[in-house]
């Protein structure tokens, strides 16, 4: 066996070169203002400081709402025998997978929500799946006997023990929800346009694009970048607590054995949550596709059909572009993420302070592209890559694919890292002794038993790349995409076309999830385990 095949070095180098080009290169202009002091000017300007303060409280309020909704949803799905819980649990990821702007449009239509609290509400709904999904996972991994020994002492103790198991994961999800809300530009912008006018910090950063002062925009982003860095350490600390709390993994705890009345109340509560998070907004958007004026003689279905026909006629190329960007980004991540994750795992398993510190630093650097505001990453990409020598690349489909892979690659990295941790070390050791090539060791023996996670990671990158809006608005080769088409249509006219565009986008985002769920069900029915 040739040494370059068995050695991790060339494969790791290639994978991390891709990460550096996709994620760290566009980040460099964002960190530069830290050293020349220009980025800290925001902290001396009372107006910008006020904007930052408003962004922080709005994000905190969104995160609190996301935690409350997500945790309640998770508990009702996982630990109460609620009728229909399995079906409704599959809906939980949807609000996160949809562009938040669709939720904003729907809730404006449903309840005429306005102002900063409308943005808080929408972003809270959009990010609720983060604490919800993480809490659900923790609740399933609670040691069954730990739950049962509490249950022998009373329901109060069992409930407290259950919540304390889920708390670190829920808080981690809340922290991520906070960062997503703090860096979101499109939702506050949408509600500001509806009046009353208000500003948040991401809008201030975005404002620099209008005067093409990208360097100033990158400098203005520094406070949010620093916030992301600070939050990163909190996230890593919480992740350690999550691992400590999830000591189960064998038999899952039984759901609480409640009576008929309690089940009925739980089912009603779960349906209400599902309605708030996804059913009502989707229903509203669908209904808007066929809305017409009082003098329009056409029926709802006629108007709706016309709207969808317009979408396929006018926005077909935009949807095609979006799919190309997302598929390429997912493919890049699919190939590289196992090597990224394996590098972190090797550092984790090494003894010695230096290796542990190196691993923590690499994990922090790898998470950063996800935590900085997308508009700031867009400025960074323009400043580093929009150069005469790179014109061919900049205008090609590869720039969006690379940027989206850099932005969302960390999701795949951390998901695969967690899946790899679950595979016994001896499986890879046996492959090393057998002289297996390094890619085979990673893919077949380390990741093979967790192949569902690999597809899930690529699927998540695909979905997040497809829903990306902030980055697409800024970087010119990404302008001709479905989400920008939707954004423009929403801001220039509020008609059936916008709603139909939103429904098509929802379907495109939902299809990978539906395919994944169907695949898991098929595997389970054949006795092949739960897969992803």
């Amino acid at each position: 066996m040739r040494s370059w095949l068995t050695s991790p070095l060339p494969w790791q180098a290639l994978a991390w070169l891709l990460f550096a080009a996709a994620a760290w290169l566009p980040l460099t202009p964002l960190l530069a203002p830290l050293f020349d002091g220009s980025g800290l000017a925001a902290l001396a300007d009372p107006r910008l400081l006020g904007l930052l303060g408003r962004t922080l409280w709005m994000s905190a309020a969104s995160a609190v709402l996301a935690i409350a909704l997500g945790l309640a949803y998770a508990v009702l799905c996982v630990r109460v025998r609620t009728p229909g819980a399995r079906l409704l649990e599959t809906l939980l990821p949807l609000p996160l997978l949809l562009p938040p702007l669709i939720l904003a449009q729907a809730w404006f239509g449903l309840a005429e929500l306005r102002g900063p609290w409308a943005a808080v509400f929408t972003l809270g709904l959009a990010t609720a799946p983060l604490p919800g999904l993480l809490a659900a996972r923790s609740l399933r991994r609670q040691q069954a006997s730990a739950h049962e020994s509490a249950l022998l002492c009373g329901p109060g103790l069992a409930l407290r023990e259950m919540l304390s198991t889920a708390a670190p994961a829920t808080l981690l999800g809340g922290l991520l929800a906070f960062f997503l809300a703090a860096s979101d530009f499109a939702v506050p912008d949408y509600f500001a346009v509806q009046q009353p006018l208000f500003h948040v910090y991401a809008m201030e950063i975005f404002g620099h694009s209008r005067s093409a002062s990208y360097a100033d925009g990158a400098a203005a982003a520094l406070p949010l970048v620093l916030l992301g860095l600070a939050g990163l350490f909190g996230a890593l600390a919480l992740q350690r607590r999550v691992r400590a709390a999830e000591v189960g993994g064998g038999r899952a705890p039984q759901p609480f054995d409640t009576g008929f009345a309690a089940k009925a109340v739980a089912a009603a509560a779960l349906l209400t949550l599902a309605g708030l998070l996804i059913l009502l907004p989707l229903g509203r958007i669908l209904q808007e596709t066929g809305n017409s004026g009082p003098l329009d003689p056409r029926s709802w279905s006629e108007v709706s059909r016309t709207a969808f026909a317009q979408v396929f006629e006018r926005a077909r190329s935009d949807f095609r572009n979006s799919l190309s960007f997302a598929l390429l980004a997912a493919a890049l991540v699919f190939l590289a993420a196992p090597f990224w994750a394996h590098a972190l795992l090797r550092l984790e398993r090494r003894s010695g302070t230096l290796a542990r510190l190196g691993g923590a630093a690499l994990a922090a650097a790898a998470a950063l592209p996800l935590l900085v505001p997308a508009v700031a990453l867009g400025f960074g990409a323009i400043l580093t890559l929009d150069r005469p020598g790179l014109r061919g690349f900049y205008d090609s489909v590869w720039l969006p694919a690379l940027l989206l892979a850099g932005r969302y690659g960390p999701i795949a990295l951390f998901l695969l890292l967690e899946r790899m941790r679950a595979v016994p070390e001896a499986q890879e050791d046996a492959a090393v002794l057998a002289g297996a090539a390094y890619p085979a060791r990673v893919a077949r023996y380390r990741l093979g038993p967790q192949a569902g996670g690999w597809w899930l990671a690529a699927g998540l990158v695909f979905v997040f790349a497809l829903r990306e809006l902030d980055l697409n608005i800024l970087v010119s080769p990404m302008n001709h995409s479905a989400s920008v088409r939707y954004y423009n249509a929403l801001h220039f006219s509020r008609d059936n076309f916008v709603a139909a565009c939103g429904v098509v986008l929802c379907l495109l985002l939902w299809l990978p999830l539906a395919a994944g769920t169907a695949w898991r069900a098929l595997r389970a029915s054949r006795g092949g385990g739960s897969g992803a």
Partner: protein
Amino acid sequence: MSEAAPVLEAEGLRLRRGTCMLLDGASLALAPRARAALSGPSGCGKTTLLRILAGLERPDAGRVACRGVSATADGRLLLPPWKRGVQMVFQDLGLWPARSVLQNVEDVARASGRGDARAASVGLLERLGIGALADRKPGTLSGGEARRLALARALVARPAVLLLDEPFASLDPDARRAGFALLEEVLRETAAAVLLVTHDPWEAERLGGAHWFLREGKIGA
């Protein structure tokens, strides 16, 4: 079996898992302060039987009574687990990872209504030789220490029935002997009836009392 009114009684328990009849008319009775050991091949349903007695699982048929009160009948739970006066040391212990050693015990003492929760917990930890570890988290304990903590947590509730599911499994022989000697000492001071699941004939003999076997879903001597 003792002639005093049983604190725990099971009659005609049946449970089918897939095509396997795990319990097929299993019956037993434990008098106050009685000691009994239960053995049987791996996977024969010993742990499931303990879980049914504790109210953590429902049988398909049969009845369980705790202190004379009907607790499970015809596949229905009539008495929830926390009202049966039963405590259990699980095979994988089920310690609460986020709570300290002392909190693991004290929480149970409070939930069982003991006014002297703190003092009783501290005293029991000292008695079991892990008082110095009170502030540690369970994840940092050795196997033997964790088992002693699980025992303290079960005993502090002053249960009428103590179910022990192979409490010293996975320990080396010396640690098993030492652990069992400590268990014997502590059990002498408790009023609880004890049902010990074990594969070790030595443990069953040392415990004293009845030695039952679970075979083909039925309990016999």
